[in-house]
């Protein structure tokens, strides 16, 4: 992807990701708790429990505090008359090209968490797949949507 023409997501998406993975990975904290309530913490089990607690806490901290900024840093998108180009991924890096002539419809979505941060996500559907640009400022998202649909209208092909 041409780095110069590509855009980044709104930085506040990091907050959204943090909150959603904090909730989504809360079960990690539950693992040592469950271990304690079932087996207890006597003898060797105390150390096993400590190790387990350490590991799950470390994992939780990673997904909540370390991954989201990296994810934001890696997320780039660019839109021009010919295609939409999405580049993202922390562990698996993925670049996707969507020809604009293949775009069936675009919409913007906003859940409660995104609304709290004044963000919207743009969803791009083709006849086969659906892609999402997860966190854009409401106004920008609206503009991106309009831009894509304007370009897509220029293409006359069907399916």
């Amino acid at each position, binding site marked *: 992807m041409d780095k110069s023409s590509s855009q980044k997501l709104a930085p506040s998406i990091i907050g959204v990701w943090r909150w959603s993975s904090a909730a989504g990975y809360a079960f990690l904290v539950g693992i040592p708790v469950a271990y304690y309530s079932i087996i207890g913490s006597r003898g060797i089990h105390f150390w096993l429990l400590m190790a387990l607690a350490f590991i799950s806490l470390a994992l939780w901290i990673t997904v909540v505090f370390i991954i989201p900024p990296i994810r934001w840093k890696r997320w780039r998108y660019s839109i021009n008359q*010919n295609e939409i180009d999405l580049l993202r991924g922390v562990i*698996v890096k993925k670049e996707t090209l969507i020809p604009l002539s293949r775009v069936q419809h675009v919409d913007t979505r906003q859940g409660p968490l995104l609304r709290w941060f004044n963000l919207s996500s743009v969803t791009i559907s083709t006849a086969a*797949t659906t892609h999402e640009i997860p966190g854009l400022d409401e106004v920008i998202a609206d503009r991106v949507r309009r831009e894509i649909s304007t*370009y897509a209208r220029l293409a006359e092909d*069907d399916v």
Partner: protein
Amino acid sequence: MIRANLVTILVFLFIGAQSDSFSFFFMIGGGFALLMISGVLDWWRFLFKVEEGEMHIKRGIFVRKDIYLTKDRVQVIDISSGVIQRMFGLVKIDIQTAGSTSRAAMIEAVPIETAKEIKKKLSKNGTVEEENTEEQSLRENKIRYGLPNKDLLIAASTSGRFGIALSILGTLFSQIEPVIRESNMFEYLFSLLPAQTDTFMIASIIVVFVIVAWLISFFSTLFMYGDFSLEVSKDEMLISRGIFEKKRITIPYKRIQALYVTEGIIRQPLGFCSVHIHSAGYGDEQGSGSIVLFPLIKRDKVESLLEKVVPHYDISLQGIKPPFRALRRYIFRSAALLTLITGVLYWFLPLSNWIWLIPLLSVWWGWLKYNDAAIGWDDKNVIISDRTLSKTIAIVKRDRIQDASVSASWIQRFRKLSSAELHVASGDHGSSFSIDDISESDGESYLNAINSKLLVERKLPAAHDTTKELVSLPGW
């Protein structure tokens, strides 16, 4: 508006009787009358007409549904006739557009002439004025390909429908098994067979299963592809097949999304393969838009067939292979899990050493997968070949690609490898073709190739100016 034929009631009745929502007992005890009434109502409320290249269907007893289909959007026209329909000289016509919403646009029973009329009106050039000339030119250009009986038998005996048949048998067996067990049939069988050991008994049961499954797959394929023919005319092709349930599928060339050649594991050594296409219509019940273009053909004759039928799809296009350093990953992916499972089983169960043939075979399988993987492109097509069990070579026209992506996991990045994938429209969900572990630079040039093609191909009309008001976007 034409009302569907009266016999539709009967058809609706039979179809209604098959649905799960009415249990068998309910049906016997008065449910039958209900079905009868709903069948009549269904028929009464079902109206359709075709005019000016647009099909209009009104249906529904309580919730009225108005369906409009324009001929520009028709992907596939599918005329089929089951045993019941054929008794009354009727056919089912199914007009598929992209997406699953057109599922309701199916007429269960119409006379064949009406169906042909509808088909003609909805075909690309089937307007009334040019009907005569069209008819003539169609006749002139028509080429017909059949499937010789010998090939049909080979197709049936090597069909990959084996697994499906086995699973059917399995469920059937689990249903019947308690009954058999209670009636002491097993003991009887045990006393009949010369088998003394349990192992032998299990082995013989498996053998019987496999034979019965093979027979099922043999006959189901025979009935499905019997009487096969492929007719090619100027704008569209017509595939007809089936002995008991006849199917006639019309596909305009422009609607073909992708084409793929499959060499099954049994067929490949014999030098046979089958050819499928993807359409954006919903195809079968599972919603995959895959349609058989040719059920069995000699591998070396595929090129000449495709050249005559779909000349734009060139299967001989050369591909780039994954680099040698990817072989390790291919073998690891197919062998690692199997080896682990075998190891664990070997440890805990008293198994013979022959069990280690399984991991060896999986290594060989990985090597085969590596050997068959390739990706290639020219200015019109992208070709991807890969293997799961059977080898598949897929050709997609570039302007049919819905999206293309290249991904690389952490380990792949370390080894300078990447995976490429593309999606085409097919049925409800689309279909993807992918290749693992091509070199990073090949992956990059694959994306660039698709990208650059877009830049050259798209000539933006004057309306382009409207985009000027969209100022370039700020960062966020």
